C-alpha cells in the first residue's frame, strides 16, 4: 500500500449509545491535533442516556473548517446500523472498520471500492466489565495505523488520555492498543504505511472548545456574575460550566425551577447590579417571552441565550435548527427594542458574548445570543481567545458619587440617545421605581397619551444609539460577484466552503456571514443591493431569516431560500450542487 497524501480527513465512529463512540473520536482528535491539524468534532445522538444509534464525527484538516466534509474517509462501525447510517456518505475508496462479532459487514451498503476491515472486537477484547473501554483502545490502534500515525504517537496519546485511571487499567488498555497494532499487521497495514499520509498542520497553540463553553467563558470574562437556567438540550453545558466557574469569581449560578423563574431571577440580579444572563432552547425561550418583553419595557439589561434545536414544540431535542428566529425577532407582546446576535463558531461565540453583556447594560434591554445545536455543541479548534480584547463597559451606570452631584434622579429620564442613567439597587441616593407598565420619568405608572408616545419613542431610539456598535458580518468569496450567499450560525462553515467550490465550478459568489440578525444592518442591505440574486441558507422550513430581511425592506424577489429542516447539517458539496442547479450552471 502506498500512502496517499491528504490534508483533509473526515471520519465517523458509530454504534449504540454507550458504545464509546465519543471516547474514540476524542482519542483520534487528540492524536491528530498533536500533528497540528485543525479539528471539527460533532455528534449525533439519540435523545436518551443509553442506547439508540449514536455517532461521533471528526474532521481533521490543515485549513480550519467549520463543518464536516462531504464524505467520510473512515467509518468505525460498532454495529450494522452504523453502516446503514454512515455507508451512504462513505468516500468511494474509503475504509471501514467493522465490529464483526455478530457477523460480516453488510457490504451492499458500502461503495464497491471501499476497504472493509472486519474485526471481531468481541473475541479480541477482554470480556469483563470494562470491555467497551478495551474495545475502543483496540479500535484506536487500528485507526491510528490507518491515519498514518506511528505506534509510539498512538500509545502516548492513549496514555495521556487515560492517565487518571489506575495503572493496571492503563496497562490493560495499552495491551488492547497493541492488539490493534497486531491486527493491523495481519491485514498488511504497517506502521507508517497506512492508506493516508496526513499532512502536518501548523505548530502553535489553539483551543478545542464548543460554542456553549465559549459563551459561558465569554460571559464570565465580561464580568458576568449571575446566571440562572433550567436544564434543556442543547443549552445545559452553559449552566454546567458556569455552575463550576462562577463561584470561583464571587458569582452565583443557579438551577431554576423553570424558565419563567430563570429569566426573572436573572433580571432581579441585573437590577441589583450583577451582570446577568440566562440560557435555554426553543421551548424554554418561548416560556421566557413575557420576560423578554418586560426587559424591553422596564429597561433591564440582560443576555438571553437561545441554543436552538429542531422545533416545533419539543421537536427533535438533539438536532440543530434555526427556527426560533421569528420568535427572537418578533416575540413578546408590544414593541420593544431588541438585539439578536448570531455567532458562527466558538471564537465568535466568545467575542459576541462579551459584546452582548456590555450591550445589555449599555442600552438596558434584552440582547439575544442565537446559537443552534451545532454551534452550541460541536467542538472546534480556534485560536486562543484574546483576553486583551475583552473590556467591561457599564454604560450610563451611576455611582453614589455621581448621584451626589445631581439635583434630582429620574430613572426613566428621556434623553436624546434614549438611554437613561441608571443606579443599581442599593446605590445611595438612587432610589427609584422599576415597572413594565408605561410610566413617567419617575417610574410612576402613567397612561397619559403624550407621555406614552414619548416613552415608546425613547425606548426604540436606544437601538439607533447602539447600532454603530453592533457586530458586522464577515465577508467571504468574491466581492465583485453578482450572486450572493448568506448563511450564519451553523451554516457559516458550510457557506464559506461552498463558496470555494462554487468559484472552482465557475460561479463566483459574494458571501456574508451576518452576525447581527436584528436589527438588520447595512452590511446585508449592501450585499443584496449589489447582487442580482442572493441565496439565503437556513435551517428551518419557512425561510425565517429571509422574512426578517424582507421585513426590513430588502427586496424579497432577490432572495432565494435554501432550506433544510431534517435535523441534519448541510455539507458544502451538497449546498454548492444545489446552488449550481438553481443557477442552471
Amino acid at each position, binding site marked *: 500500500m502506498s500512502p496517499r497524501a491528504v490534508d483533509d480527513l473526515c471520519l465517523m465512529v458509530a454504534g449504540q*449509545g454507550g458504545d464509546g463512540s465519543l471516547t474514540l473520536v*476524542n482519542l483520534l482528535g*487528540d492524536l491528530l491535533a*498533536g*500533528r497540528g491539524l485543525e479539528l471539527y468534532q460533532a455528534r449525533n*445522538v*439519540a435523545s*436518551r*442516556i443509553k442506547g439508540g444509534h449514536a455517532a461521533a464525527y471528526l474532521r481533521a484538516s490543515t485549513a480550519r473548517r467549520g463543518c464536516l466534509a462531504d464524505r467520510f474517509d473512515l467509518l468505525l462501525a460498532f454495529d450494522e446500523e452504523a453502516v446503514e447510517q454512515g455507508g451512504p456518505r462513505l468516500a468511494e475508496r474509503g475504509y471501514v472498520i467493522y465490529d464483526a462479532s455478530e457477523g460480516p459487514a453488510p457490504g451492499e451498503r458500502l461503495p464497491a471500492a471501499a476497504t472493509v476491515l472486519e474485526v471481531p472486537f468481541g473475541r479480541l477484547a477482554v470480556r469483563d466489565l470494562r470491555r467497551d473501554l478495551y474495545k475502543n483502545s483496540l479500535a484506536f490502534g487500528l485507526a491510528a495505523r490507518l491515519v498514518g500515525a506511528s505506534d509510539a504517537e498512538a500509545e*502516548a496519546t492513549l496514555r*495521556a488520555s487515560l*492517565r*487518571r485511571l489506575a495503572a493496571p487499567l492503563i496497562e490493560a488498555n495499552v495491551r488492547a492498543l497493541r492488539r490493534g497494532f497486531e491486527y493491523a499487521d495481519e491485514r498488511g497495514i504497517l506502521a507508517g504505511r497506512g492508506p493516508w499520509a496526513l499532512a502536518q498542520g*501548523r505548530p*502553535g*497553540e489553539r*483551543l478545542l472548545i464548543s460554542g456553549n463553553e465559549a459563551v459561558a467563558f465569554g460571559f464570565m470574562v*465580561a464580568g458576568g*456574575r*449571575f446566571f*440562572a437556567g433550567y*436544564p434543556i*438540550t442543547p443549552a*445545559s*453545558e452553559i449552566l454546567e460550566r458556569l*455552575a463550576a466557574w462562577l463561584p470561583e*469569581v*464571587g*458569582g452565583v449560578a443557579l*438551577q431554576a425551577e423553570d424558565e419563567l*423563574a*430563570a429569566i*426573572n*431571577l436573572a433580571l*432581579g*440580579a441585573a*437590577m*441589583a*447590579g*450583577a451582570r446577568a444572563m440566562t440560557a435555554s432552547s426553543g421551548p424554554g425561550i418561548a416560556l421566557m417571552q413575557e420576560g423578554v418583553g418586560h426587559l424591553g419595557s422596564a429597561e433591564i439589561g440582560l443576555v438571553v441565550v437561545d441554543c436552538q434545536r429542531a422545533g416545533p414544540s419539543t421537536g427533535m431535542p438533539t438536532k440543530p435548527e434555526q427556527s426560533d428566529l421569528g420568535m427572537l425577532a418578533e416575540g413578546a407582546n408590544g414593541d420593544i427594542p431588541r438585539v439578536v446576535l448570531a455567532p458562527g463558531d466558538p471564537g465568535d461565540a466568545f467575542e459576541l458574548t462579551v459584546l452582548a453583556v456590555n450591550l445589555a447594560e449599555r442600552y438596558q434591554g434584552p440582547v439575544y445570543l442565537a446559537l443552534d445545536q451545532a454551534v452550541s455543541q460541536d*467542538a472546534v479548534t480556534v485560536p*486562543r*481567545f484574546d483576553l486583551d480584547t*475583552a473590556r467591561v463597559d457599564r454604560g450610563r451606570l451611576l455611582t453614589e458619587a455621581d*448621584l451626589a452631584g445631581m*439635583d*434630582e*434622579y*429620574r430613572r426613566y429620564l428621556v434623553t436624546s440617545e434614549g438611554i437613561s442613567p441608571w443606579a443599581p*439597587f*442599593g446605590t*445611595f*441616593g438612587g*432610589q427609584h*421605581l*422599576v*415597572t413594565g407598565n408605561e410610566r413617567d420619568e*419617575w*417610574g410612576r*405608572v402613567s397612561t397619559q397619551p403624550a407621555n406614552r408616545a414619548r416613552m415608546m419613542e425613547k425606548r426604540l431610539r436606544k437601538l439607533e444609539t447602539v447600532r454603530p456598535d453592533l457586530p458586522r458580518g464577515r465577508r467571504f468569496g468574491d466581492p465583485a460577484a453578482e450572486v450572493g450567499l448568506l448563511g450564519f450560525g451553523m451554516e457559516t462553515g458550510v457557506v464559506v466552503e461552498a463558496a470555494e467550490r462554487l468559484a472552482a465550478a465557475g460561479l463566483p459568489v459574494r458571501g456574508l456571514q451576518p452576525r447581527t440578525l436584528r436589527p438588520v444592518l447595512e452590511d446585508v442591505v449592501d450585499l443584496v443591493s449589489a447582487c442580482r440574486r442572493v441565496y439565503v441558507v437556513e435551517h428551518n422550513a419557512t425561510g425565517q431569516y429571509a422574512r426578517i430581511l424582507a421585513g426590513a425592506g430588502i427586496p424579497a424577489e432577490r432572495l432565494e431560500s435554501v432550506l433544510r429542516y431534517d435535523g441534519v447539517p448541510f455539507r458544502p458539496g451538497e449546498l454548492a450542487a444545489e446552488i449550481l442547479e438553481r443557477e442552471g450552471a
Partner: protein
Amino acid sequence: VTAMPRTYPPAVPIWCAGCGHFAVLNALRAAIRDLEIPAHETVILAGIGCSGTIQNYLGTYGYHALHGRVLPAATGVALANPDLTVIGAGGDGDGYAIGVGHLVHAFRRNPSLTYILMNNETYGLTKGQRSPSRLGEWGGGEGWLDGPLLGLSIPSSTFVARGYSGWFDQLRRLTREALEHARAKRGFAFLEVVSPCVTYQDTYPRWEQALHDLDADPSHDPQDRAGAFALAAELAAEGRLPAGLLYRAPPTGPPADLPAPARAPIDPAQLRPRYEAILDRYALRPGGAPPEPAQPSRAKARPAEVRSLDETER
C-alpha cells in the same frame, strides 16, 4: 452626610377606604423604621394586583414584577446583593395561583428575603373573581389553598406566619420579625396577611370569627414544626385559620459567608490569570505536551447540583 438628589415622590395609595392593605403598608413602614433600615438598602418588589402597588409608597427602591414572578425576581436581587433588605409582596392571585410554583421553590431554596402575601380571597383589580385561597363557595367541589400550611410542609422552610389586617399590633410585630429573620440571613420569611377586600370580598366579619390567635394559645410552640402543622391542618378542616407566628426554625449558627455577585470584582485585567488557567484546559499544543485529558468539554465529573443532560432531552 453625603448630598443626595431628589428622587421620586412616594405615591398615595390607590386602595379603597377600609382596604386591609393599609394595615400591611403601615406595619411595613413601622418595621422598616423600627429596624432603622436605610431607604437605599431596601428593595420592595411587588406583583400584579391591588397589593402590587405597595412598592410605590415608601420611598425605597421599588420594582413592579410580572404577574406571579415576584419571588424569582426578589431571589435574584437577594442573591446578587445580600446587603439589601429584600421584601417581596403580592396578592393571593399572584402568589397562590399564577406564581404558586415559585412559592414552593422559595420555601425549598430558602433565600434570605421576606415575602408578604396579602390574601383577600379575590382578584380585586380585575373586579372580584375568585382566588384559589377562597374558603368554601367553589363550584365543582374545588378546595382552597392554605399557604402557611403549604410552607410548613416543606422541610427547609424557616419562617411561616399569618397576620390579620384587623389585628395591627400582632401584624406589626410579625412584619418586624419576618424582616429580622431575613436580614439575619436565616432564610425565607413568609408572612401571609389576611387582608380583606371591602369592595368584592368583605371578609372582616367572617375572619374575626374564623381566626385562632396563636398569641393567646399557650400550647403553641413556634419552634415545633409538626405541632404547628397539626394545629393548622386541624383548624383548616373547620374552615378556620391560625394567626401569629406558626413556625420559626431555630438559628443554625452564624450565617454563612454569602457571595455578592453585584459587588464581585469584574475587571478582566485583575482576573486574567484565573481566566487563562481555564482556557489552558481547552488548549491543544501540537508537537508539545499531549493534551490535558481532563478537559472540561469531556470531563465526567459534573457540579453536584447540576445533572448532566448532555445527551438527553429534559
